[in-house]
C-alpha cells in the first residue's frame, strides 16, 4: 500500500458558462488526512471528481501519484471517491454491491466491511433504494473504509447520519488509517467534528483556492482568548477578531495573532486563558465576503 499525493496546476472545470474551478494550483500530501473545505458551490465536488477521473479538466492538469488519472487502468483501482449521491447498483442487494467492490478493489478488507456493517446495523439483503438517507451514507462509508484505496476521497458522506453514527465513522476511519496509512481527503461542512482528524487543510471559495496549509501551521496563526469581558476586549484591540461570544461577565474571542512569550505571560497575568483557534472560526472568517486580506493574514504573508 503506497499512499498517493495529488498535484493540481491551473486546474479549471467549466459547465457551459459556469466556471466551477478556476486555475487551481494545490498539492495534497501523500499519507495524510486532508480536509477539503469550502462553502456550497465552492468547487469541492468538482475537484474531487477531477482527481478521481469522473470528469476531465477543461484546462490545467491534475496528477495523482505523479500520473494523470484519466483512463489510467493501473492507477484508478487505487483511487476511490465516495460521493454523497452514492454510486451503487440500486437493483442489487448490499451484499452484491459489496462483493462487486471486493472484486474491483485489490486491498478490500472483508473483516472491516463486516464490522462496519454491524456498527451501522445494515442488512446485507436490503437493496440500496430501500435505505434511508443516513443508511445510504453509512453504506458509502463501509465501502470507502473497507476498500482501503491508496487515495480515498469522501465527499459529504455523513449526510443524514445521526451524531453517534458520525462519531463511529470518524473512529473507524481513524483506526483503519493508523493501521493502514493512506491518503484521505474529507470534504465536509461539519468542520468542528472532523477537525481532530485533519493534518492538512484545503479551502476553496467560488472555484478558487483560498489556502492549502497544514492544520498546525494554520491554527497557530490564531488563538481563542477567554476571560473577563473587559480584559478580553482590551486584549483584542488592534487584532483581527474572527468571532466573539459572551456569557455574563465572561467573554471569548477568537483572534488572528501569534504571541511572543512576554505577551502570553501578560495575558495570563490578566486572567485570560489562551487556547487553540477553532478551525471552523477560521473557515467562516476566510470564506466571508471580501476575505482576501484575511487569507493573506492567515497565511502570514503580506
Amino acid at each position: 500500500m503506497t499512499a498517493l499525493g495529488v498535484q493540481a496546476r491551473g486546474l479549471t472545470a467549466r459547465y457551459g458558462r459556469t466556471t466551477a474551478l478556476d486555475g487551481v494550483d494545490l498539492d495534497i500530501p501523500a499519507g495524510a488526512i486532508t480536509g477539503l473545505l469550502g462553502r456550497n458551490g465552492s468547487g469541492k465536488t468538482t475537484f474531487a471528481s477531477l482527481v478521481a477521473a469522473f470528469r476531465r479538466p477543461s484546462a490545467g492538469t491534475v496528477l495523482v501519484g505523479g500520473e494523470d488519472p484519466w483512463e489510467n487502468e493501473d492507477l484508478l483501482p487505487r483511487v476511490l471517491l465516495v460521493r454523497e449521491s452514492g454510486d451503487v447498483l440500486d437493483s442489487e442487494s448490499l451484499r452484491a454491491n459489496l462483493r462487486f467492490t471486493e472484486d474491483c478493489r485489490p486491498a478490500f478488507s472483508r473483516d472491516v466491511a463486516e464490522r462496519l456493517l454491524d456498527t451501522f446495523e445494515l442488512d446485507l439483503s436490503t437493496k440500496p433504494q430501500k435505505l434511508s438517507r443516513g443508511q445510504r451514507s453509512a453504506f458509502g462509508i463501509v465501502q470507502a473504509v473497507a476498500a482501503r484505496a491508496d487515495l480515498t476521497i469522501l465527499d459529504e458522506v455523513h449526510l443524514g447520519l445521526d451524531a453517534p453514527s458520525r462519531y463511529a465513522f470518524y473512529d473507524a476511519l481513524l483506526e483503519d488509517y493508523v493501521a493502514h496509512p493512506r491518503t484521505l481527503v474529507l470534504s465536509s461542512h461539519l468542520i468542528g467534528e472532523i477537525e481532530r482528524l485533519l493534518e492538512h487543510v484545503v479551502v476553496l471559495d467560488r472555484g478558487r483556492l483560498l489556502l492549502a496549509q497544514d492544520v498546525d501551521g494554520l491554527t497557530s496563526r490564531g488563538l481563542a482568548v477567554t476571560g473577563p469581558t473587559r480584559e478580553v476586549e482590551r486584549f483584542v484591540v488592534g487584532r483581527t477578531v474572527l468571532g466573539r461570544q459572551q456569557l455574563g461577565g465572561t467573554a471569548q474571542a477568537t483572534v488572528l495573532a501569534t504571541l511572543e512569550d512576554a505577551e502570553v505571560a501578560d495575558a495570563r497575568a490578566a486572567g485570560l486563558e489562551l487556547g487553540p483557534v477553532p478551525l471552523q472560526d477560521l473557515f467562516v472568517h476566510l470564506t466571508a465576503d471580501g476575505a482576501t486580506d484575511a487569507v493573506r493574514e492567515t497565511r502570514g504573508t503580506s
Partner: protein
Amino acid sequence: MTTSTGTRLGSARPVRRQGPVLRTAASLTGWFAQIALWYWALVLVAVLGVPFVVGAVGDVSVSVLWFARQSGVWFPFSVLIGVAATYPPVHVAQGMTRRAYVKGALIAAVVLAAAFALLMAGGLLAERAWYGAMGWDWSLQDQGWFDPEITFGSLFVAYLATFAVSYVSGLLVGTVYAAAGGWWGTLTLPLTAGPSLLMTILVGNSNDWVPFSELFGSDGGSTPLALVLTVGLVLALALAAAFWLIAARRAIPPRRG
C-alpha cells in the same frame, strides 16, 4: 450503537480477480441473465399454451415463437438502455476505466445476442418439430426470408445480426441520453435506434424492395441472407464505434434525487 449481528459477506465465496473488461462483461451478462430468465419463462408459457387455446377454437397453423422475435429485439434493447444510463457511474466509482466499460458492455451485448439467437433459432426449429408431432401445420406469418424448411445455421445468423444490432443500439441510446440529456437523446433516436428498426424490417421483408439486393443473390423475393448479414455487420460496427466515442469520454455527474 454497536451491535453484533454477525453480518457476513459470504466467506465461502472466493474473490474474483478478473481483468476489468472480463469482470464488466461477466457482471453485465450475469445481471441481465436474471431478467432474461423471467423473459424466457414467459415466452415458454406462451409458446406451449397458446397453440392449445388456438386449437380449441380453430386450426393451429402459425408459429407462436415467431411473434416473440419482436420482444427478443425490443426487450433487451430497453434493458440495455437502462444499463447504459445507470451502470457507468458505478463502474467508474469502482476504479475502472471507461474503455473497460465499453469493451465489457460490447462483449456482453454480443454474448446476449448470441444466446438469444441460439434460443430463438433452436426454439423455432423445436417448435416446428413439436407442431409436426402434434399434427399441426407450422408456418410463419409475414415470414420474410424465413421459409418453413430453413436450416438452423441460417436462422441463427439472421437472428444474431438482428439482435446484435439492436442490443448495441440500446447501449448507444442509453449513453446518448445519459451523456447529452433528454433533448439530444430524443432528437438522435433516428440514428441511434433507427438501425434496430431497419434490421427488423430487412428480416421481415418479403417484397425485395431493398436496393442492391441482386448483388447478394436475390431471387426477387425476400432480402437475401447475405445482405441481412452484411447490413447487420456494418450497422453493428457503426453503432459500436459511436458508443465507444461517446461512452469513453462522458463525464459522470453526481446523481440527482
